[in-house]
């Protein structure tokens, strides 16, 4: 009786304080050699795919460009096209915004990547409602929240029409699409991609996001903090598939997680604590607090107590990053946490900002990963290393062999396309 094997993917560390740039082992986030190292490591570990995030406007805080975290990255599809030359099996996933692109052009770019890589392309569909980002684009402006998803859904439908538009023997057929967001017609410039359609990834926790994933995505990139949360999310999303005529296995749920290893449990905990300190420098701690309090806190001591003033709501203070929700409530919660445990500003930010981490010996981490899959909290994981580009080396060298010994992860690639790694059927032609 064979067990359900997990899927693994690697995220290239992006522009947030997860990436520890101050570590002496940290190398360039822009040189091709860094991308090559991480991708080759992922392929050595037989990972399903390699995943790039996107940025379309540099974040600003208090009207100035944010300068504490890693800033600056290359354009994703171009990097992945180059990585196709130095890898053979690894899936290549790019995050690309459906708000500031057009279906014909983007469908063509992804079809090209799929052809160039022999069937390894994936598209992580994201949307934006951000007028701040829109200032870099012809279309400018923004879409309201509801329209973001209707546009994304129609965008994806249109892309699939385009991918399917050539005949099986390679003759272009005219297509025409007229909908609420797009009215386009002509001929596509490429034969159907090797995978039929590149794999579609979606990240989004809202109700609309879950529905969009259930109707249209092959992989969901989620962020869950516990096994129980993961199980609830998993059950909810899988339940939604049936109404779209899809089977539970047609959508893979892959949370983004960090892993910290040590030779002993205590050593792993020590390293994890050190990594969290590195991720939250004194300056980063104050900046995080300013995003909650909505005011300049630069005169505060990051090793001192939290401000006793009340926060003000100022959405323009920080631009270009995820909103933090009800900041007044968060401030209250953080003050309580600080009082209860006697934590400084920096310690509070570290404590409150805990991410999904698997911490322990390679054996313990392998067991925990297995449990998430066995108890249906995940179909696999997207690993988010804290170091560029060597942050995956230890996992691949120490944890992957254990997972393989236990039959929880593949020992070879059976196919050559990303769909074959993920066990996804080839999409039916329109």
């Amino acid at each position, binding site marked *: 009786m064979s067990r359900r094997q997990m899927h693994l993917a690697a995220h290239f560390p992006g522009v947030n304080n997860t990436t520890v*740039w*101050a570590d002496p082992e940290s190398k360039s986030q*822009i*040189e*091709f050699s860094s991308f*090559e190292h991480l991708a080759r490591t992922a392929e050595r570990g037989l990972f399903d795919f390699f995943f790039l995030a996107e*940025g*379309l*406007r*540099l974040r600003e805080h208090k009207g*100035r*460009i*944010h*300068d*504490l975290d*890693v*800033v*600056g*990255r*290359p*354009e994703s*599809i*171009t*990097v992945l*096209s*180059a990585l*196709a*030359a*130095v890898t053979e099996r690894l899936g290549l996933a790019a995050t690309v915004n459906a708000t*500031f*692109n*057009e279906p*014909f*052009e983007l469908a*063509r*770019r992804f*079809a*090209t*990547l799929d*052809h*160039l890589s*022999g069937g390894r392309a994936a598209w992580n569909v994201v949307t934006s409602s951000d007028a701040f980002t829109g*200032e*870099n*684009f*012809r279309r*400018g402006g923004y879409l309201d929240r509801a329209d973001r998803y209707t546009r994304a859904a129609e965008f994806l439908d249109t892309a699939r029409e385009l991918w399917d538009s050539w005949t099986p023997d390679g003759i*272009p057929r005219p297509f025409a699409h007229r909908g609420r967001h*797009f*009215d*386009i*017609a*002509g001929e596509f*410039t*490429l*034969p159907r991609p090797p995978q039929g359609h590149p794999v579609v990834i979606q990240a989004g926790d809202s109700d609309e996001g879950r529905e969009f994933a259930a109707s249209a995505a092959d992989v969901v990139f989620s962020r869950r903090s516990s096994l129980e949360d993961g199980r609830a999310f998993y059950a909810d999303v899988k339940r939604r598939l049936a109404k779209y005529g899809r089977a539970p296995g047609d959508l893979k749920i892959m949370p983004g997680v960090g892993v910290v290893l040590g030779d002993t449990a205590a050593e792993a905990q020590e390293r994890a604590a050190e990594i969290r300190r590195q991720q939250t*420098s*004194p*300056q*980063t701690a104050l900046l995080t607090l300013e995003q909650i309090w909505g005011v300049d806190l630069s005169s505060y001591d990051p090793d001192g107590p939290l401000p006793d003033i009340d926060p003000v709501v100022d959405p323009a203070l920080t631009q270009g990053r995820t909103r933090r929700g009800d900041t007044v409530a968060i401030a209250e919660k953080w003050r309580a946490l600080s009082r209860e445990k006697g934590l400084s500003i920096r310690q509070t930010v570290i404590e409150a900002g805990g991410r999904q981490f698997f911490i322990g010996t390679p054996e313990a981490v392998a067991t925990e990963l297995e449990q998430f899959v066995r108890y249906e909290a995940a179909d696999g994981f997207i690993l988010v290393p804290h170091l560029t580009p060597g942050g995956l080396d230890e996992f691949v060298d120490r944890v992957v062999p254990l997972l393989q010994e236990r039959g929880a992860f593949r020992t070879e690639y059976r196919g050559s396309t990303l769909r074959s790694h993920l066990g996804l059927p080839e999409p039916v032609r329109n």
Partner: protein
Amino acid sequence: MLHLSVAVDQPSAYDAASYVALARLAERGGLDFVTLDDSFARPGPDALAVLSRVAPATTRIGLVPTVTTTHTEPFHVQAAVATLDWVSRGRAGWRLDVSTTEGEARLFGRRHAAVADALWQEAGEVADVAAKLWDSWEDDAEIRDVPTGRFIDRDKLHHVDFRGTSFSVKGPSIVPRPPQGHPVRVVDATDGQARRTAARYADVALVRAVSAGQAAAVREELRSQAAESGRDPDALRVLASLLVDLCAGEHAAEPGHGGGGPRPSPQGPLYRGGPVDLAELIATWHGQGIVDGFHLTPAEPLRDLERLVNGTVALLQHRGLFRTFYPGSTLREHLGLSRPANQYAVTKGTS
């Protein structure tokens, strides 16, 4: 210095292998760069992605995809071209082109077709904003200063605040300044407003000319227009574009065709003859100062590129007219073009 480049266009090729083979062949000949044409209007893959796929499979040759400026987003285009420069370690170029047909406009459904002159005007604005965005990071903006916790010096990043006739861009770019500063810009300068845009923004201008006299006249016009727009004319390379059909054996030029000079064809000036006579033509035009080099489009990609590299180029090398190795590693170095100064960097300590 003679500059040689070739097109690696192939009908109905969608996978990487044949493009890699042609680019490696061109690199073996020491050519300055390969081009790959692109358009939304005819079958073919995305040229920039193809040449990005070619980049790690080659080490020296310049990579110049066509990227159009009419229906694309200038911000995305500059980021992709800058990224090609990063993945190729300084070998990227960008051949600007426009989309003039209603058929192409219908693929996007956002605007109607416009006349070429207006679109070339816009292409110039796209070239302008791209250069600003490439400069929007100063070269030393990344500081990784642990004591202050700062990854970048934000005083060395700049909003470009560009307002053109049909678009605006705030900036800065998301991509740090590419290795060449500005990837090399190539424009077909044969017609009308395209020529004015080339004179102002291009590093390499391509000219489809059937006679030496015509080529020389266009080069002079380009150089004087470049000077008028405040550029050093010597920073503009003018290459003659020829279709080449080398099927006619080692020496034989087309009978009755004056030694194998180009002649008009529906696809543009066509040279038909042998590799040796082509070498003669190249040596003559270059030696007389008519052009700075050539951009050759083989009629039969693999066959003609082999003959070009093993015949024409080998002969030019033998005669000491063309390089036998790459003295530099970037496309700008092959072309003898300097790395542009950053338009936002302030020279310190001089005021």
